[in-house]
């Protein structure tokens, strides 16, 4: 770590050969490139959602659509409450992931195990929340191709709203699911002392990058569907 800082302050000539110009290992650069391509995929989804919404006269009011809460009575009106809990679950799991990465840098196996378990729990909690919400909306009659919610101004709406909602939150949920699987694999590898044998926990950093990206995408999805 201290080597890196001294090298970069000396205005080193990074492109003259003999050293890695990015000064990170191959796998991490490739993870960044993958995440960049994934950012374009999500960006394409969200921009197409925005384009269709801009080209339509009316749109359902998210505060009337997403107003229920698990175990609450039928007619409860609690807009934004459930989704804010989901958001905080994901932020907290991102924080525990940073702590796991940091513990890995300190070669602290116990810390890595502890924080990876918390991160996995956070991911599963988020997926459970999403499963509940999808199930609830499905019972209200919303699915791909059908939209029981009317526009905010009381006019009839199209199924564009539900199509985009289920496609984009579904794609994000699939990323969360993959992230949880990756994190479980990382936890097992840590418990098997794989990283102790290698002498570094770089794999945890790469899994961490992916997990933070999932959190990052949720920031955009949450804002675009529930707030705007």
């Amino acid at each position, binding site marked *: 770590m201290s080597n890196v800082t001294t090298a970069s302050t000396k205005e080193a000539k990074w492109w003259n050969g003999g050293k890695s110009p990015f000064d990170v290992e191959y796998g991490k650069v490739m993870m960044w490139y993958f995440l960049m391509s994934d950012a374009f995929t999500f960006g394409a989804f969200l921009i197409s959602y925005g384009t269709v919404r801009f080209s339509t006269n009316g749109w359902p009011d998210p505060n009337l659509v997403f107003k229920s809460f698990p175990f609450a009575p039928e007619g409860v009106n609690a807009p934004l409450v459930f989704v*804010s809990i989901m958001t905080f679950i994901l*932020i907290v799991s991102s924080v525990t992931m940073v702590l796991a990465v940091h513990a890995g840098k*300190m070669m602290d196996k116990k810390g890595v195990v502890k924080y990876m378990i918390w991160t996995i729990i956070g991911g599963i909690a988020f997926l459970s929340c999403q499963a509940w919400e999808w199930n609830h909306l499905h019972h209200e009659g919303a699915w791909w191709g059908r939209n029981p919610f009317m526009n905010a101004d*009381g006019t009839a709406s199209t199924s564009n709203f539900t199509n985009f909602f289920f496609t984009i939150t579904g794609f994000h949920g699939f990323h969360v699911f993959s992230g949880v699987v990756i994190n479980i694999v990382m936890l097992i590898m840590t418990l098997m002392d794989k990283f102790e044998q290698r002498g570094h926990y770089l794999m945890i950093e790469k899994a961490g990058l992916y997990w933070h990206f999932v959190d990052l995408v949720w920031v955009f999805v949450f804002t675009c569907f529930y707030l705007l």
Partner: protein
Amino acid sequence: MSQDTHAEHHDVIAEIKKVTIILSVLTIVELILGFWMIGITSEGLRLAIKGVIVILMMAKAFYIVAYFMHLKHELKNLIMTIVVPLALFIWFIIAFLADGNSFKNLRNNYDPYFKEQATIKAEKKEHGAHGATPSSHEKGASNEGEHKTKEGHK
């Protein structure tokens, strides 16, 4: 050496704490704005609040990428390789949203059916209400009526 890493450890933990607090505060402000917006009917004010929410969203994205994903502490070479291609989004967003908006205006001007659809009120439906009858005057509403009756039998 060990003292060095010890001090570094505290710095990192302090930074994580700071960023966690910033992200939580930004989210809470977003939610407060969201709740506030529920009661507001003025289009201009709603648009202004939405603008603020988007700025807060970008701030959250910055903190996650810069600190949690550690990009701020990487070499400038890597930062530029990642950030510069993403600048394409600026053009994507402006171009596509403007296109969508223009399509809406064109259809409102030249397609009377499209404009008429936006004025027909849908029937008010209470959740779980039985016996919602399919209405005959409008296609969209009649489809919705069918779903509602299906729901009622569940």
